């Protein structure tokens, strides 16, 4: 597993309770393994790839990621963050057309017990928000980098991305 410390794998349960990680449950030393509960579903470990910290993204210390597609940045929260928060029950997102500024709050993500402010990785205009999260906020848990994307920003200055962390640096500072 590229970039991951030895033995640090995510372990998840299938619906029937059996382990689905590439490694068997007992061998997993991940701190989040111990937080798995019987009635929770999790994203299956993706065939040993370093799905937890995709290389092609930029990261913030506050656990948001940004993926650049020309002048648009897609934004979400990392797998580490969603596992810490656990089951997400609600995501509060800005309206399309709102202007956001790098490192200022643009929304809130909530579990049953806590609420976390979301910080914009770049400045720009919000051109899309993920409407599926209204009825299915759990997408952020099950697919934090794909189906669980939060907003898309048309960037004022793509150079702002360079101020963010790369995968390795983000992972190290967790």
């Amino acid at each position, binding site marked *: 597993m590229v970039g991951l410390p030895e033995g640090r794998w995510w372990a998840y349960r299938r619906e029937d309770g059996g382990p689905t990680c590439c490694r068997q449950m007992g061998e997993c030393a991940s701190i989040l393994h*111990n937080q798995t509960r019987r009635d929770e579903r999790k994203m299956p470990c993706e065939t040993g790839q370093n799905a937890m910290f995709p290389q092609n993204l930029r990261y913030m210390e506050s656990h948001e990621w940004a993926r650049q597609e020309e002048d648009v940045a897609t934004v979400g929260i990392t797998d580490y963050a969603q596992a810490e928060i656990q089951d997400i*029950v609600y995501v509060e997102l800005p309206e399309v057309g709102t202007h956001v500024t790098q490192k200022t709050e643009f929304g809130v993500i909530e*579990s049953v017990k806590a609420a976390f402010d979301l910080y914009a990785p770049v400045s720009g205009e919000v051109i899309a928000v993920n409407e599926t999260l209204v009825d299915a906020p759990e997408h952020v848990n099950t697919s934090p980098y794909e189906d669980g994307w939060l907003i898309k920003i048309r960037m004022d200055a793509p150079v702002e991305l360079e101020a963010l962390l790369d995968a390795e640096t983000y992972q190290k500072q967790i």
Partner: protein
Amino acid sequence: MDRETLSDGLRDTESFAERHIGPRNEDITEMLAALGYASMAAFIDDVVPDDIRLTSPLDLKGGGIESGTAILAERNLDAGRDCLQGMSESEVLAALKRLAAANLVYRSYIGMGYYNCIVPPVIQRNILENPGWYTQYTPYQAEISQGRLEALLNFQTMVIDLTGLPVANASLLDEATAAAEAMGMCLAASPARLKSASTGRNESGIFFVSETCHPQTIAVLQTRAEPLGIQLRIGNHEEVDFDEPILGAIVQYPATDGAIHDYRGFAERVHNAGGLFIIAADLLALTLLQPPGEFGADIAIGSAQRFGVPLGYGGPHAAFLSTREEFKRRIPGRIAGVSHDVTGKPAIRLALQTREQHIRREKATSNICTAQVLLAVMAGMYAVYHGPTGLRRIAARVHALTCMLRMGLEEAGYATGDAPCFDTLCIQTPAAEEIHAAARAKQINLRPIDAMHIGISLDETTTAADVAELLEIFGGVTEPVEIETGPARLPRIPEEFQRKTPYLTHPVFNSYHSETEMLRYIHKLQAKDLSLVNAMIPLGSCTMKLNATAEMVPVTWAEFSDIHPFVPREQAKGYHALFEQLEAWLAEITGYSGISLQPNAGSQGEYAGLLVIRKYHLSRGEARRNVCLIPTSAHGTNPASAVMAGMQVVVVACDAAGNVDLADLREKAETYRETLAAAMLTYPSTHGVFEKEIREICDIVHRAGGQVYMDGANLNALVGLSRPADIGTDVCHLNLHKTFCIPHGGGGPGMGPIGVKAHLVDFLPTHPIVPTRLLSPQNGGADGIGPVSAAPWGSPGILPISWAYIAMMGADGLKSATEVAILNANYIAKRLEGHYPILYTGKNGRVAHECIIDVRDFKKTANVDVTDVAKRLMDYGFHAPTVSWPVLGTMMIEPTESESLAELERFCDALISIREEIAAIESGVADREDNVLKNAPHTVDAVTQTVWPHAYPREAAAFPKPWVREHKFWPAVARINEVHGDRNLVCACPPLDAYRGA
């Protein structure tokens, strides 16, 4: 026989303190010995810092303020007794009877949001007068709270149906603050707020208030709006033009003068101006009138008092708030929501808690914490008992009598306006004063609107004979005008206002109409709730002490419960004597110079206290002071209240020992030296420690120009030993529902009076209708902040409880109570310290009146978290201590002085047994997933199922220790799925087939 022995023998054998305090003298000696002390004095010397100790006993003889104390003077003249010792229960009941006799119960037709009603006796005796309903806490441990949660769901459903809006909460403090909360929702929902650079305050927008809202509502809105930068426009909704955007608008329905208006056009104008439309509505009227949800309302608020809750001279009453689906995450207060447990059985719990102050702190939707749950339960049960038909009958009768009165008055030549009405008339007459006098001669109160107008509101208790009497007073016809009252001929509300939509169709409102059925329903729900009648509830910072019967008995006496808040003062002399005495006692206990009894919850007290501080700074020309320093360990209401008071919250760190970080405080006090308004502290700290630097902390704040606000939630560790004012604080609130025995009621009622030092007395809250500080030697309250509650003295109906407690304990008893509270907590800490780490201790390694046990490590070693421990305690028959506050992943235990040694031991035994269960998992003997903690709580259904799927025996699940059998309390549901409940909010009663499948 010598004189001493004789008087010994004659000494009253009833000592209330012995009944209130749990441990016997022998137990106390034993506990002290276990901690290594020969005497209580030596123990207290070791725990409480010397520099804050009182050197003399409290002097509770009395305020010495005119009228009231004369009634009590005879008590003080009893030979051989002084106020150190306190009255016996019989004496206090006799004293309260004398006070009550000084209240005159006239028939009041004043209205203005308060109406006489009939409390169904079955509800009065089995809920209001039943400790099985009033001693519970807020239902955070939902599995053992399904009774009151269902009652709250009924309340919410009633509000949803009647208002026609789909989301409702589980009560607010009163109609006026509910209106203020609705205004707050408009502010939060508004897209942009302009910041005014010079003042640092928001010019937040314009909010329109109809001049026909109840006057106390308007006044509370004014108080609330000003620090938030909201500009109020008060006017006639028919004439106002919105030429700029507004935040929202509020109107009264029916109006305060009784008129029913068609608000549809106005609703459109409000929406076109970008605002939200709020209706303050009368619940009984809504059984006949078109509901607000059907003509453009975004939010509906009001009082549920007239649904079977006594007047109580102003409270306590439950207020309601309902709104559209899209605003559900903005509403304040608690919401009961339906989810299911792990077996799929429907279960109710508190939903969307992330809105609330205990999670969101300064970003919360409101500072509200304790609300009015017991009264909401009663109002909901009133609807259950009467059902839609019964309520409609009551409303129709009230309306018919009002029409009768109106016709009679018009026949006698009086003008009552043209607008349709429900229960209230506004009569124009130049002879208003004479009419009021004639009314008073018959022991009747009418509403004095102004020199030319009189208001009359009829209610459930009004009869045709009453109407005849009213007509007589107006010099009209003495024979009642005949009105056909058969169903076909009932006077009608005009067609366009008539309600067409059915309401209260759910079976729960149509099944319990005989008293036997109602009685059993009430008891069925009660059986699902764990309360102080079952076991100790060791919730840290909640102070779940005894709510003595003698304290509660007078609450339902007519002379206390049947007085309208706006009667002439001379009719409430008993209440006023009680207020004066209570204020004097609280002032002595706290060391402050002035007390306001107006705030009706601790959070309201914080808010009022901060507004007082703000006004103080304004009066000295220091409007720039708006920063409030608050430690991270503070209760969530603190930052939430500061934001409501228009202050900017700056957080101060705590050090590794859990105390306020002095270096950080010094630095921030220096940084904000020019703009510091206040600091909010809790003492002893929320961690249960008497921080020894408290005087220094107060000095730092004062030197930087700020005032010190003390959160009085932990006063149970101070009374009689130390005083907030002496420590150096300027203002504090008291939680009478903690320290002074008002029962928690499942989440309210509460009372949060504030005490202030001399320099702040002028700024205490006022009230536009009944002046609150008439007798103050200084002034008529001209500099006071506006009202923070609808009623001038908050919830007076429950003040006799605290009065009785203080009177019965006396100075000695109060001090003993504090000492035993501290002893009990330290004893528990001692017994548990070998099994759980005790987090944070103070002087000599002791705690104050509460202690925190740390269970965080068990996550790693046994896959057990604090929730698992809390749920497992239910299997032992206990409610968990406070979970994850003030420190995440821990439990805070406050036994109070009322728990006996046996109960303390039982609780410790349970926790120690649970520690052993955890050890079994750690060592691998028990499975990490399938164990007694993970599967807790175990219901009787689970334990009696045919196939037992677990690795441990049934007995271990349900009866982990032999003594549990004697004290078994079965949780009604298994562990509740909180996530499902928050993703899918259901806050009304689900259809019955949801229950059949489970």
